[in-house]
């Protein structure tokens, strides 16, 4: 039987993978993928802890909201990346360094 710890372990793994992708990837789409992984780690935690919610299904409902929001966020983020690409002709985060001044 799979216990709560297993879920948390998988979730932590997912989160770290996502964080690594966000910090280290040189392609904005992969950074976005990393963000999605982190969101999914959070969703997994919600569902896993939702088990202790009795019959209320609060965790699962919340997870559903999070998934929908994540989908919306992806759409927006992809649009942003498209525009960034149009402007800079690159989606490498290192090339987009206008924040420096």
């Amino acid at each position: 039987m799979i216990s709560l710890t297993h879920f948390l372990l998988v979730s932590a793994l997912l989160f770290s993978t996502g964080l690594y992708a966000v910090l280290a990837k040189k392609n904005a789409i992969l950074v976005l993928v990393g963000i999605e992984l982190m969101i999914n780690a959070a969703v997994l935690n919600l569902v896993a802890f939702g088990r202790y919610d009795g019959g209320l299904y609060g965790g699962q409902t919340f997870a559903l909201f999070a998934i929908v929001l994540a989908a919306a966020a992806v759409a927006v983020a992809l649009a942003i990346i498209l525009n960034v690409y149009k402007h800079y002709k690159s989606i490498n985060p290192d090339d987009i360094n206008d924040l420096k001044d």
Partner: protein
Amino acid sequence: MDQLSQISTPVLAALIVLCAPLISFGLSAIAGKRLRSGIPATVAIAISLLAAIFIFATVWNGQQVHQQTSWFRIGEHSFKAGILLNNLSALLLLLVCAIALPVHVYSMVYMKGDYGIHRYWLYLSLFCFAMLGLVMADSLLLMYIGWELVGFASYLLIGFWFTRPAAIKANKKAFLINRIGDLGFLIGIAIIYTQFQTLDLVALFGDHGMVREAFNDGVEWRYAQHAMPAFWLTIAGAAFFLGAMAKSAQFPFHIWLPDAMEGPTSVSSLIHAATMVAAGVFMLVRISPLFDAQILLLIGAIGAFTALMAATIALTQQDIKKILAFSTISQLGFMMVAIGIGQYGVAIFHLVTHAFFKCLLFLSAGAVIHEMQHVKETLKLELDPQDIRNMGGLRRYMPHTFRLTLVAALALAGLPLTAGYLSKDAILIFAFEWAEWQSAWWKFIPVSLLVTSALTAFYIARLVFKVFYGKPRISAIGQGTNYLHEAPRGMLLPMLFLGLCSLFPLFSYNPLLFEDTWIIKGFELPETLERVNIYHTVVPAAVNGLAIVMIFIAWRWYAQGKYPQGSLRGRLYEFSAAQWYLNVMYEKGIVKPLLKVSKMLYAFDRTIVDGLVDTGAGTVRWFANTAQWLDRALVDGLVNGVGKAAVFAGGVLRGSRKGKIQYYLFSMFLVLLIVLFVGLKIFSP
């Protein structure tokens, strides 16, 4: 987890069968481009084959093996995962491995030197793993997972040469059409779960399973306390059949299969023989107790129609792989008819025999295409290596390939001494006997099957004669120099194995009578039809008589070159060559209207939604301008002083950050970690 220690030997073997391709898949995934050799994948599938043989020897006609472990819980409902081995799954496991191994060996030669070969082995292992998982799954949910994985792996393999636009179009088409089928499967699962509260195959479809025990009086479908209107039973059957229609390429969802020929030929042989299209038939047999009379009639009718339609299309195709693809669709139609008339054992029997000879036909086609490609490259010709109009007379250059193709072609045409004869006759005879009990109208099913089998003999004879007989159609080949060679041994040996499996001794000691076949005996007959003796002599005679006449006509036309010029190029020819215009109809009837609707929605979005937003934005902008003036005049003066100080501090602290956003993120993450750490130190009790 403690159940793991009590695993029985067949289940352990099943786990080995399942895990060997998975391990090979993982190996290829980790090694990436460094692993270009196909040896790990081939060894893995060989191990699977050995374990599958062991399972088959233990389980066939013996006790059914079923073991499961608890998987997860949702609220009150717990789900279990496990392995179910009975006659059906043991046979299919053996078949999948026995087809996959020759294809792997063949691919080692066929795909040699391909740029992306490391991906090839990766996908191939995944494909085998998915199919094996689907076969041994003991619950509908696990089966669905395997089902989806098979679809996904085939998507990857069809688009293997992803730089060709045609391949990308083909794999997208295959995937989308399979999604329609998946939807059907999912709806079916949902209905079953609502009614029976379980997805366990044994509990649902076993001998005293819930589906058989459930009570249906035509108004209400009742099991225990739970009841729903009876038409849901029909809908559930139709939904599962929808899944099988898409996976097993039945009309009107067959259009993905001919396009799937864009993948490597060895992959086509695997898809067509054992892994992809077989899944639909297998699934229908697995859940067979569910079907009521209407659905069975529907399955039979669609199967018969598909068989006839695909055979008429195959008559006029010029691409060697397209002919074989439509032939597969047609033969799958035969299997569907067998299911429709309730002869599940016969359907599986035809699935097995068809797997061997169709795989062989594809591998031979691959060998021929390989050589044509070679000729094209050495002579620098502009020709399509798959077009049978460019071939001819290959018998002299590739005698072994020719002989093996001939065996497979005879099996497909259903001539005696081959395995195809046994299974095709079984389906035809049962279909005629079944029609005795139906209203006269349903006679069209066996009759159309008879016509189809005559057409089958014609188109496969046309293929063999056009490719291997006559004179070479490219003048350069005929002129002395030997450009064409026999296929290398690494390709011929797997083909030889398949060729031997396409003959009758593997299935029955009696080459003329299908009733002695051990595969059919291994399945219970749901309702034994009354044996009508006359059919058992007349039908084989009719099939073979027609086949021989058709082969003779094909020989006159294509081998001897006495083609009746002009007289055959009518409307019907165009209709068949254009594949019944179905692709055009889908394009005009579904794709175009969808695009139109999308465009209208886009226009709506642009003019109305955007217009509203723009007006809102204008108002806000006016407010903002006012606010900006206030801001400039009053607040900025104060803030600028602070800002300048911050700029100075920032300039000092900036160091090497240089606007790279990921460095900022990383520093933020570090600070967060430090704060967390310190916080825990201070506040922890």
